């Protein structure tokens, strides 16, 4: 027969290639460095990667970096955990109980869009200028998205599985523990990716007032002095922090969700 049938495609399937991702980042930094060497990017406008690296190295050697990092990490850990525990509790309640559902969602919908940065002065009045207000900023920023995500995760557990549990006479608590929670876990964990990023973003706001230590405070003070090397060094640290947290969550997902 004269005409050959041509292949027309087998569905879209974008492939994951980790090396290509790393190569892209390396290429961007190399171009940036080259542009700086060529004199196209004045130092104040955008410092070169090598200048940022040197600033980072100095900070690490003087020990300043670790002080800032330690202060920020402990705030992140405490703030994120508080916001997450409270958010999970309310999110589960909204997902499971009719009495919690509408009131909970009404409150969350009303308060979620408020920029937490605008509330920092209030938090300082309520919780003091020390750690309290900083942790409250992070915790509240994490709390609302956690509630919404957790409630949605519970809602998306297949109703058929819950009916299966009921049809075998499983007690309510077993249905929650063995069917609802594991079914909601994948969505809850991917919510952690978002809330941990939110916490890192809010770090700068939380450390805006009355913080001597902390990556956010460091970035702000470098910014006020137009010390762009250190400003970007701090931002690189925040970005690296985000990557580390994402990696940790990825490991947790792989360990807990082996069944997928």
């Amino acid at each position: 027969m004269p005409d050959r049938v041509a292949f027309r495609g087998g569905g879209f399937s974008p492939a994951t290639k980790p090396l290509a991702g790393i190569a892209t980042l390396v290429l961007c930094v190399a171009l940036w460095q080259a542009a700086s060497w060529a004199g196209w990017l004045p130092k104040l406008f955008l410092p070169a990667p090598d200048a940022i690296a040197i600033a980072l190295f100095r900070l690490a050697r003087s020990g300043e970096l670790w002080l800032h990092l330690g202060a920020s990490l402990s705030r992140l850990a405490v703030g994120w955990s508080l916001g997450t525990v409270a958010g999970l509790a309310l999110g589960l309640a909204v997902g499971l109980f009719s009495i919690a559902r509408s009131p909970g969602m009404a409150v969350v919908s009303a308060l979620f869009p408020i920029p937490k940065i605008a509330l920092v002065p209030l938090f300082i009045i309520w919780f003091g200028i020390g750690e309290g207000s900083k942790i409250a900023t992070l915790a509240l920023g994490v709390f609302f998205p956690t509630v919404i995500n957790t409630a949605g995760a519970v809602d998306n557990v297949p109703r058929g599985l819950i009916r299966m549990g009921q049809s075998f006479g499983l007690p309510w608590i077993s249905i929650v523990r063995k069917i609802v929670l594991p079914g909601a876990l994948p969505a809850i964990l991917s919510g952690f990716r978002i809330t941990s990023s939110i916490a890192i973003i809010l770090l700068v706001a939380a450390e805006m007032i009355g913080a001597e230590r902390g990556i956010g405070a460091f970035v702000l003070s470098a910014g006020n002095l137009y010390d762009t090397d250190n400003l970007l060094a701090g931002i690189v640290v925040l970005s690296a922090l985000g990557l580390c947290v994402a990696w940790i969550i990825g490991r947790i997902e792989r360990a807990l969700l082996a069944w997928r």
Partner: protein
Amino acid sequence: MIVRQDGLALGLAGIFHRFSGLLVLDGIDLIIPAGEVTVLLGPSGCGKSTLLGILGGLIAPNHGEVRMSGAVGRDCLNPLTYVFQDFSLLPWRSVAGNVGLVLEDHPMTRAARNDRVAEVLALTGLSEFAAAWPRQLSGGMRQRVGIARALAVRPACLLLDEPFSALDAQTRDLLLEEFSEIITRAGTTTVYVTHNLSEAVRLGQQIVVLSRRPGRVREIFRIDRPVVGRRISDVDLLACEARIWELIRLDAAAAVREIADA
């Protein structure tokens, strides 16, 4: 209601049910005799799943009631037990874990539980797959897990909602054969929902033909010979199939058009 000495009988009296205005079941009176296989046969959308849900206490009917009578075995943990069309397995539990799930809330030692899980897995030909995840199994194997899970609680009455309709024809025939042997040996009262005529005559001792929605009982056929040993090609079964088809063909055609309209 008729009570036989062995097993559980169910009775439905005056069942009406509507879903937000849509009348689905319109006055069902029915007796499910103990120790027999009752098939509920009807076109899609006629209310079979709803009726089965009402039988097992998963749906509260608008009117009417379900009663049960007869003896329940001493080791029966869940008298009315479902096997679901979509298998309803927990994807995060292994095959053995899915079966164990329904035993964990009952007072029994871990060893006794493991023994019982192993026993029903052996009965359904799943012993080698105890550690597998559901996603690694074919549809036929997944429904075996669904059946194993149901058998693990030693049910007095099995309620099956088109359990094999998601499977290919060969797998379905093989599973039907194994399944009929298992329930015959245990003498479990069985209610089997299907829209498939040859499945109905292959398994049913009492075949309840339902009309299209709103579901009513149109006629009840009986095939009194034992379920084990029946072949799909047996002459009496084919004759019964032909009679039922004669009865429902107009209904079936109308039901198809109705769904297309909706």
